[in-house]
């Protein structure tokens, strides 16, 4: 009973916060704090990862690429799931803020995915002797980037923004098939890419001296994403209002 009413209260609070005016106000208060915390953790993670943590016994200094590569990969996957979820929410509930949030998140997710691909390539050259190989994980990650591009292009391709949002939401949901393929490709197929060592059943198989900077960077990436996401969503909301005002004044100017 208590749980149910708590959920209801949370839901109502969220709905209130999702009112455009309220959202602009709330997010304005939140953004500086989140951004500052993210930046601080990013610096700490960088120092720890690049200077304090030891080189790998096999990979040497190149292992430090990991502190960018792995958090970026996680964020690429996480943001896609978020975008798809927001799109689904928008399709079912029809709340414009969900679409605005999805539109704001997609380019950020594409950026993280691109960072993962680029750092992976830089890492691959010394490790595998090639910038790129067509193994299952790499290929599916590349497809994820294409899916992001499709989502971004589709959501901006129509004169009526609602149509773009809905079409992009459908694409986002369909593209979710790709997420488990990225995640489990290393287990399902025999690939060059290394299997999961942090997020797996039975706890991480990685030395704590490397685990700490990694987790720091992962948290920093999350916070930085969250701050940017709020800024971009705010911009979308305010932009929609400006466009509505402009079209109203145009109608009046015409009369």
């Amino acid at each position: 009973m208590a749980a149910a009413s708590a959920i209801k209260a949370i839901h109502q609070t969220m709905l209130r916060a999702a009112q455009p005016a309220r959202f602009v106000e709330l997010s304005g208060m939140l953004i500086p704090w989140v951004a500052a915390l993210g930046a601080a953790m990013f610096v700490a993670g960088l120092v720890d990862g690049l200077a304090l943590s030891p080189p790998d016994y096999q990979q040497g200094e190149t292992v430090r690429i990991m502190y960018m590569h792995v958090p970026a990969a996680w964020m690429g996957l996480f943001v896609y799931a978020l975008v798809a979820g927001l799109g689904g929410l928008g399709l079912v509930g029809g709340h414009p803020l969900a679409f605005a949030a999805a539109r704001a998140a997609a380019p950020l997710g594409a950026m993280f995915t691109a960072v993962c691909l680029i750092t992976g390539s830089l890492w691959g050259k010394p490790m595998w002797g090639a910038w790129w190989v067509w193994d299952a994980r790499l290929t599916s990650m590349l497809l994820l980037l294409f899916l992001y591009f499709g989502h971004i292009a589709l959501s901006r391709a129509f004169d009526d923004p609602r149509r773009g949002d809905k079409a992009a939401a459908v694409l986002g949901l369909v593209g979710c098939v790709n997420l488990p393929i990225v995640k489990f490709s290393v287990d399902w197929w025999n690939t060059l890419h290394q299997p999961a060592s942090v997020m797996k059943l039975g706890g991480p198989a990685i030395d704590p001296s490397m685990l700490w900077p990694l987790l720091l960077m992962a948290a920093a990436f999350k916070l930085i994403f969250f701050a940017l996401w709020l800024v971009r969503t705010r911009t979308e909301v305010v932009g929609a209002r400006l466009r509505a005002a402009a079209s109203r004044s145009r109608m009046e100017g015409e009369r």
Partner: protein
Amino acid sequence: MNAFVAVLRRDLLLALRDGAGTWTVLGFFAIAVAVFPLGVGPEPQVLARIAPGVLWAMALLAALLSLETLFEADYRDGSLEPLLSGALAPELLVLAKALAHWLATGLPLAIAAPVLGIFLNLPTEAMPVLLASLLLGTPVLSLLGAVGAALALGARRATVLLAVMVLPLSAPVLIFGAGAVESAQTGLAATPSLLILGSVALVALAVCPVAAAAALRQAVE
């Protein structure tokens, strides 16, 4: 049923008479395949090695290119609105148009592929499998493409959008299709790959018309 046949007939007529139809697709396919030996060089072993992949990849691109106009032409000249407000269910409309698209492009592509295979030194044993894999795979492209074309309808940059949407989804078709031919070429059994292609086709047949119809209704809104 009458309306279904009417749409099918008209689309076939248009594909045979007008641009972006059968001839464009076949022309593109032939030229794209012919360009390869020019770029890669004439060594028979290399050509034979890449032949299944090249044939399948180019067939995919050729089908993709012709998909843009699947609904776009009707949308632009005002035909789509009466088509959707007639007595024919939108799902059947999609099916009729996808079937016409397949008959006008997928089928000719499948038939032309073995001929082009000769130019790439594809061994004769692999020809039947090439034909079979394309016959099973091209309907999937038409059906998936119908969903993509409906989603991208009226969008700017519809071609890229379509490609970006359809390609990741059709990647498995490509992999299994080319895989089947390669197996046949190297003397392995191609049946497993062909069976997978067949079941993908059945799933697409069940799911895609519904999805495309929903997208179409959105589009004329």
